[in-house]
């Protein structure tokens, strides 16, 4: 049965079992591979995407549960990878292996929508579900503060598609 949803601003229809996790729909049906498979159980956060602007774990989200919803992945966070978080991540040379970072950025993006000026505690709490096996947490936190600063108008571009929609 075809399931319709919006991915990165585009309507798509996939003919898959309803219990197929959104992660595998994104990766194998829609060829959006920026969303990563880490644990398959909602424990590591590497698969984080936005469902109507809220961070969700796509590895434990059946695609039928997001029928008709707006899904944003790392590929759709901004049209040209210039979301302030993506810029700040580069400014602070955050990643090592980088495998978790799409999930970190998506979780951070959801946080910044709700909280334009998060404290360390706010960040720690929001990012608690995102594992970085390489241990780049200090840089992630700094980059989030920097991105928040940029988004509050203190330098940097990055009005991405997602913000435009929001």
């Amino acid at each position, binding site marked *: 049965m075809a399931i319709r949803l919006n991915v990165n601003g585009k309507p798509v229809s996939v003919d898959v079992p309803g219990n197929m996790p959104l992660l595998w729909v994104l990766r194998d049906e829609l060829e959006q*591979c920026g969303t990563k498979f*880490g644990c398959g159980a909602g424990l590591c956060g590497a698969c984080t995407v936005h469902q109507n602007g809220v961070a969700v774990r796509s590895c434990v989200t059946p695609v039928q549960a997001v029928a008709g919803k707006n899904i944003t992945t790392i*590929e759709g966070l901004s049209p040209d*990878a210039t979301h302030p978080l993506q810029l700040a*991540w*580069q400014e602070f040379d955050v990643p090592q292996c980088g495998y978790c970072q799409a999930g970190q950025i998506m979780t951070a993006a959801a946080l910044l929508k709700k909280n334009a000026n998060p404290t360390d505690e706010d960040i720690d*709490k929001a*990012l608690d579900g995102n594992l970085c*096996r390489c241990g780049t947490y200090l840089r992630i936190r700094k980059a989030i503060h920097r991105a928040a600063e940029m988004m509050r108008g203190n330098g940097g571009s990055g009005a991405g598609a997602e913000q435009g929609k929001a």
Partner: protein
Amino acid sequence: MKTKTATSMNRRFFFQVTLGAGGALVLEAQGPRRGAAPKILPTAFIRIEPSGIVTLTGKNPEMGQGIKTALPMILADELDVDWKMVRVVQGDLDEVKFGSQSAGGSRSTPNNWDLMRRVGAAGRQMLVQAAADTMGVSPLECTTELGKVYHKASGKSVSYGEIAAKAAALPPPDLATVKPKDRKDYKLIGKSVATIDLDKMVAGKPIYSIDFKLPGMLFAVFEKCPVFNGKVVKANLDEIRALPGVKHVFQVEGDGNVASLASGVAILAEKWWYANEARKKLKIEWAEGPNAAHSSAGYDAKAAELFAQKPAFTIRKDGDPEAALAKAAKVVEGKYTFPFISHAQLEPGNCAAKFENGKMEIWAPSQTPGRGLQMAAQALGMPAADITIHQLRTGGGFGRRLANDYLVEAAYLAKQLPGVPVKLLWTREDDFRHDFYRPGGYQRMRGGVDANGKIVAWHDHFVSFGEGQNFVSSSNIAPTEFPAQFLDNLAIEATLIPTGVPTGPLRAPRSNSHAWVIHSFLDELAHAAGKDPVEFRLELLGEARKVGTGFGAYDAGRMRAVLLKAAEVSGWGKRTLPKGRGLGVGFHYSHSGYFAEVAEVSVDGQKRVKVHKVWAVGDVGSDIIHPSSARNQVEGAIVDGMSEMMNQEITIEKGRTVQSNYHQHQAVRMAQAPPEIEVHFVKSNNSPTGLGEPPLPPLLPAVANAIFAACGHRVRTLPMAKEGFRWA
């Protein structure tokens, strides 16, 4: 692991110059033939397009350690080109062309530092010659800057792109006679540049091994016996074949070696999720074999029994430690226990392969692709010459991908389906249950100090794993392990417990447990001696001098320097800390790097531990190639070390791994990571060495000793959660 020195390699390297497409200069270093092996096609390290775009080859596997940036930086600096013009491509496996291509033991930097400098310098020399010929001047009067050759006297200049074709026609210089730059002339080395692939990572580009796909690819899961080395007897293969999306099901007999090809059932489907869904319906009868009798509880009981007996054999004995203990003013004894742990790198095991017309092509996330190729050849009964391996960026290694089991499995499945590309992907549960674990161990430490507080005796009875006197992988202790060579009366003895659990190197193998035991026990002795832990260690190290030779060579001066610096920057002995808060110190030499670390920790009444700050000081030689990346490695090692201390343990019941996912083998999360990590490098007159491993080991004793300073509890069991601790 190959440890051939870069110098011996260089002498036998020579240049071949060919004209690439579009008149590009292609500089190719060609390695020695191995025996009578046929010559394999040479590969370019450097290619300069007429447009000025410089394409450099990253030769070693990239798993997050930053080598795909660091080695090309060395090339680019010597070549004298603008980093903005540099593109880096990942080299395929070809160790004749590139020299050793492994990522392990923090060897990529030391093994390639000299080679990369010479290859880059040779390229620059050829470009200068071609430019001088073009301008009608002497090459000795020419200088270079950022992709251009200048003749200052005449005011002439040409860009590298313009003369690339001409340079390509020149006879290549001998690498051994090429003169690399003076340190003072480095423009890139020592500066933080844009890390290669960073822009792609933040954009979610499909750059990882797991993302690699080919048209017509089938996706595989592989169910292996939960008991190590168990075998399939029979399975409901026909039932599985009929499930949605499933294309093929294979019963794999295996080759009796879990590091190569385990026995199990493979399911291949059009999309991976269908294969994994079908897997849930598998019913397999296993012949579990003798390992089913193994358990962690059994190992613990055996170790307790063995500590009551004399050690089975001696690894090192200096003087008469027993007599010295008998005469010591104070004797301290402590039994330390550390667990098996898993690598838990975030990208699960995966590999792609295609078998066609008798040739195997593999796309692998391996740390040792050369070994992987040999293993695939052996397991599949194929000539090595018929196998090619492409290297793909991978989401973390930590030593897990030194093994090539996923590679052999993928290649085996591809071989069953000629012409069909196959992608194997493990689940997280597969990864936890079929690892080559950091082996656990037990150490009964005894030491004595004299009336002046000087260590006079050291005895280590190490109960580890293996048969007779043969340790299983990564479970041994070196006869030169500190404080060996620094004490007159010292013995390291061992008794081994047989195990069927696969073991292997985890980031800073051996050091990641030994440093904790040794420096925790040194702390016990320092307190028994009534001495400051830093002072006590400085006395033990003694004067700046080199101790031992070969593998056991230890530079006491380098260690003193990092220890003194760590004490200085942390304000050791100069600050008054509130009750419940303390500083701890540890140092360790491993993988050619000297590191000392101080941790500031508080412990509350509920045994909740907060690491407030860590100061890490390292000496890895004369140059830090890419400082931002280097500091990142150190910061990560500190967080990783904390993860190993608190909640990570693999336990075995009935020959199988109990833990299945991250909730049972927890890594540190952001809130638990130290809010501050201060990294310093002490530059010494030594060739640069690697950073993946040496910053990790001192973290564990630094935190454990700080816990003692904060609350008086001596941590002797890891993970510390077993002693009632948890992160604040």
